[in-house]
């Protein structure tokens, strides 16, 4: 029995076929990066894994059980969603945002219990953002927002985090810090399914990579083996060279860059 997987997943939206038979397996505690050009179905695939969409055929299985056999509350206990730090029209403070991760487990009409508040604070402490708890979400920087949303997932208690392009809109420093957070959470046993626009980020995190093109999985496997020069150029229609640095770490060098 595998941990979290999809077998022969098809999905169409208004007669437009988006996914054509996708197989994806996620081991517990691993990081899976989804690569692919814009509009290849990465977001759709993640929504199917979150149970937000129903596949036209095929099924997503979580711990040997169909994802849709779980109640929405049970599902939230296993899988959580870290959206891009979306524009939120109303101002909530950071602690309240994190507390929203507890919503499914609070009782109707009651305010958050002390246990819930403690869980939320612990989650923020783990990510080193407890000092932000009174700040309004909108006034936080992109990196801080993303950490608040991750803290919300931790407070939710789910061990699987599905992230939609977590670094988008972040500056270079915050990008690296976020990847580091993902890496350390994964060492603690958290499982990640994330889409990314940067093959380099997948390489930094290691784990597994699935490359998606026109609704098919073009290549998959260990990230270090899967991401090759040919794959990158085929996925993104680019001309880059994948070179090993002296310490053995691969970097992408576009053809237009002058090298010796």
């Amino acid at each position, binding site marked *: 029995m595998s941990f979290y997987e999809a077998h022969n997943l098809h999905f169409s939206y208004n007669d437009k076929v988006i996914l054509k038979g996708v197989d994806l397996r996620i081991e517990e505690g691993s990081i899976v990066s989804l690569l692919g050009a814009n509009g290849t179905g990465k977001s759709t695939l993640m929504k199917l894994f979150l149970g937000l969409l129903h596949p036209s055929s095929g099924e997503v299985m979580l711990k040997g059980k169909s994802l849709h056999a779980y109640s929405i509350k049970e599902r939230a206990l296993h899988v959580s969603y870290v959206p891009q730090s979306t524009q939120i*029209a109303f101002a909530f403070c950071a602690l309240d945002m994190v507390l929203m991760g507890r919503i499914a487990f609070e009782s109707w009409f009651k305010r958050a219990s002390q246990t819930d508040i403690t869980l939320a604070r612990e989650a923020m402490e783990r990510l080193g953002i407890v000092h932000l708890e009174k700040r309004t979400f909108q006034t936080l920087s992109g990196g801080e927002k993303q950490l608040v949303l991750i803290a919300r997932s931790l407070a939710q208690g789910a061990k699987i985090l599905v992230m939609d392009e977590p670094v988008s809109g972040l500056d270079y420093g915050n990008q690296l810090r976020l990847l580091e957070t993902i890496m350390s959470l994964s060492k603690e046993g958290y499982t990640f399914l994330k889409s990314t626009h940067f093959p380099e980020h997948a390489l930094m995190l290691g784990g597994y990579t699935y490359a998606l093109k026109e609704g098919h999985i073009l290549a998959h496997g260990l990230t270090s083996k899967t991401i090759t020069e040919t794959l990158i150029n085929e996925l993104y229609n680019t001309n880059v060279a994948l070179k090993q640095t002296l310490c053995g770490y691969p970097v992408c060098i576009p053809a237009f860059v002058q090298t010796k």
Partner: protein
Amino acid sequence: MKNSLLFGLIVASLGASMLISLALGRYEIELGTLWQLLVWKCLSVGSAPHDVTLLSNIVFDIRLPRILAVVLVGAALSVSGGAFQAMFVNPLVSPGILGVLAGASFGAALGIMISNSWLGVQLFAFAFGFLAVLAALGVAKIYGKNGSQMILLVLGGVISSSLFSALLSVVKFVADPYNKLPTIVYWLMGSFSAVDMKTLISVAIPLLLSTVILSLMGKYLNILSLGDDDAKALGVRVAWVRNSAILLATLLSTLTVVVAGMIGWVGLIIPHIARFLVGADNRVLLPMCALLGATFLVIVDTLCRTSMSIEIPIGIATSLIGIPIFVLALRNAKKGFV
């Protein structure tokens, strides 16, 4: 701490404005006399004031039902406005967004035209208020299998509102211009002058109950304002929460039309002012909307019936007062509706 102080303050001003409203009117009662009467009647302490039959008649039979209706309607409009704003993640939404006000007005006008009883008018207003919202939801449902629900709901509401406004014009056009038309027009301007104990009793419980339940749904509305995907992934049954909130808000809005006709702007501006005072957290915001809306409408209604020799229709007054307040509130819009 700051919030409880604020709530105390608003409750006190609601009480004060209700007392003052009880005292003011064509027959003015001194506050001291009013107090003596209230204490004597309710607690059976002290002595009866002079002219007790007349005073009781004015205070308990005429003014009190009206003021209580004003309190309930003010709270209902503001809470349903606040709830709709949270649901649609848009601070510019008012309770009429799904067509409920247009539908209820049409229903009332139709009721005035074809029935001679007050109850008939109220039933028509109620039924068509709900029908208009169902029409909006129906339009959204036809196309909304995969797409964004919110946009379709807004469009459904626009369609339903326009439809019932057009039908209202038809009724106005064919209504008897000497007898029925003025009643319809007057109704559409909103007024509490027709409220009696019977109306109050029949609507008080559903109004109060829905206002309280909707106010208590704050934390779920908070989640809805994050967007559907986010809310679902957090383990919330989005459709269920949204439909219950729409049902309650619709019930509230139609009942306000049943009681007092069309009263615009309250449901739009009060949530803004409340948000300015206590922030966007619906758990605090909605109860604040209820109190603030009630206080606001008591003050406006008192002005309407006392400031001139004839009574000013309250719908006109709320618009005239509401528009400048709204322009001021828009200054906050740039700051993300804090």
